[in-house]
């Protein structure tokens, strides 16, 4: 069967199955298990209402449990075994990893990414949000800066491969260097700094995200606070840094953490641009070098990523619980 037909069939089965499941399970609950008639009608209705939420939740919980919760445990368990999966070696994979220099480079680079990308994207997003706030063509400008969000990491990498190309007839950076009489070079082979050239691609993609959210937050600031500051003689910079930024600090933190989590997942850029060569590996791309070759190592790297995400996760859950109260 061609995949397209298979896809259409899956949509029909999936959607039909979902609706059918919810409809039928509710029907059975109300008519068969706890019928709302006879001597125990009242009790039955109450009982049915106690079960019903779980009917609604079951498919989602099942999928979440299987596809996200189980792997956390499953991956950790697998990482304690060797390549074949038959021999238990405890933390052997982790010790091996830490003695590898590429792994240490990847951890170091990943920390650079985690520091630089969220900071830069949030800063640029805030800058654009503030500058376009009262601009007549601000919405067009925002829309254009937001656009890279729609582009895949692979597509974005190709776009920037053009910019970074070593040939001055293709790469605009080397064309400029050539124009000013400098030697052409391949930016991706400049040790250490090449990491930043790769990071900038992600900054390019994520600035729009930060901008959209921060611009909404800036609009939500009460006018009176700003009016009062102006009357007190504050200048533009004072108003921005001392009145506006403190009021949207909460949103800035949310944007920052959201981008941080994204940074820890993105392997596409390094994979397409350098393949991890020239000292540019980060943990997600490093993990892919072991994928399909050594599952024990691969899951160990994945679990290290999980450990890096953990603080953000705990903070997020705390925040969510605070809001619910």
């Amino acid at each position, binding site marked *: 069967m061609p995949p397209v037909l298979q896809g259409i069939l899956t949509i029909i089965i999936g959607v039909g199955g979902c609706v059918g499941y919810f409809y039928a399970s509710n029907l059975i609950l109300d008519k068969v298990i706890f019928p709302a008639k006879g001597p125990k009608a009242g009790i039955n209705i109450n009982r049915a*209402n106690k079960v019903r939420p779980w009917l609604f939740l079951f*498919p989602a919980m099942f999928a979440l449990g299987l596809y996200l919760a189980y792997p956390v445990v499953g991956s950790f368990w697998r990482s304690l075994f060797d390549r074949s999966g038959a021999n238990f070696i405890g933390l052997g994979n982790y010790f091996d990893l830490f003695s590898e220099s590429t792994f240490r480079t990847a951890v170091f680079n990943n920390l650079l990414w985690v520091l630089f990308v969220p900071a830069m994207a949030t800063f640029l997003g805030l800058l654009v949000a503030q500058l376009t706030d009262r601009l007549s063509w601000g919405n067009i400008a925002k829309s254009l800066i937001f656009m890279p969000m729609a582009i895949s990491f692979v597509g974005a990498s190709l776009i920037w491969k053009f910019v970074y190309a070593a040939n001055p007839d293709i790469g605009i950076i080397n064309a400029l260097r050539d124009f000013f009489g400098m030697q052409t070079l391949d930016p991706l082979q400049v040790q250490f700094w090449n990491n930043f050239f790769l990071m900038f691609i992600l900054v390019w993609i994520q600035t729009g995200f930060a901008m959209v959210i921060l611009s909404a937050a800036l609009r939500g600031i009460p006018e009176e606070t700003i009016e009062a500051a102006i009357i007190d003689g504050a200048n533009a910079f004072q108003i921005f840094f001392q009145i506006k930024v403190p009021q949207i600090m909460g949103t800035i933190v949310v944007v920052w953490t959201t981008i941080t989590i994204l940074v820890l997942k993105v392997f596409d850029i390094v994979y397409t641009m350098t393949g991890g060569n020239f000292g540019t590996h980060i943990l997600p791309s490093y993990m892919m070098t072991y994928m399909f070759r050594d599952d024990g190592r691969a899951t160990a790297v994945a679990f290290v990523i999980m450990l890096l995400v953990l603080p953000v996760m705990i903070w997020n859950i705390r925040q969510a619980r605070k809001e619910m109260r």
Partner: protein
Amino acid sequence: MDNIAGQNQGARIAVNITVIILVLLWLLPTIGLFVSSFRDRDQISNSGWWLSPFSVEQNFRIRVGTDTARQIDGVHVIEGNAFRAPELEQVFEGHEGQISAFGTRAVAPDEFTPGERVELRQGGVLTVEADGSFRIENTEEFGARGPTIYVMALSPPRFTLFNYNTVLSADGMDRAFINTLTVAIPATIIPILIAAFAAYALAWMDFPGRGLLIAAVVGLLVVPLQLALVPLLSLHTSVGIGQSFLGIWLAHTGFGLPLAVYLLRNYMVGLPRDIIESAKVDGATDFQIFVRIILPLSFPALASFAIFQFLWTWNDLLVAKVFLPSGTDSQVMTVKIADDLLGSRGGDWGILASAAFVSIAVPLVVFFTMQRYLVRGLLAGSVK
């Protein structure tokens, strides 16, 4: 009142200029790729895309035929025009152009200026004029193989669909496009329904442990995908799904659910309580309330999640690499570009550019037509 930028003329101009620079910086790389995808392959490697509206100095190689050789006053002569040679004919319509230099050796194609008389190595004298007409004189008869001339000529800018044709036919991007579509659409539709029911239960039904479940969803929101790859692939293999489209649909459904439940619940909680309670008083069941009231009212949130999930599944490389077989039959576009084209067509920028554009065209259309919902979804997910 807080018109900071408008306080004086100078500041306003500065703001405008800064924003223009930023927008250009953000836009130029994409424009460069877009322009390059339409350029002729030889022109791409001869001048930057920013020079594409201008003529390009290109180097051509002409093999002169000896069948037109004539004998004039005892001298063997070949006359012709470079622009009528088959090598140049397709580039220069109307057979007109300007020769800026010519040469007789491949290593120095621009050795001589037009009008110069040049001794050929195999004997004879060559002159090439700026208008392309050339003349070779030789006292002896020409052999079967004529001499080779190199000319540098300004060729007019040429834009073609050749790259797109090649990418879509020879490089199999058409198949990859359909595969991407096949992955993305079911993987977008199915999680929405599952998530909507769960979100309703978390938003409007009372049961013990609700708070914990919501916290769990928030926690799962940030679980790195990388963790899921190995255990799930072996799970899929052991239940017989293996690497297949079914496997990737299930995987995308699972990975998309936390965001879907979270977004939809946040939205549904904000729906007016009166409507739902009065429906309950009128005797509507939860199922009826959900289908008749909640779903239609939640349309904006459903739309914004659908856009997210569609963009995410369309653009995904990692999940496709792991959960789909690696053969060309089931390669999606991102895998095709990253694993195939970058390797085999590494230096062929025109092909790469058009492949990239084939893959980002649909997301861009979705983005620009449905930006409103996308923004709304982002705000619902983050600002709370």
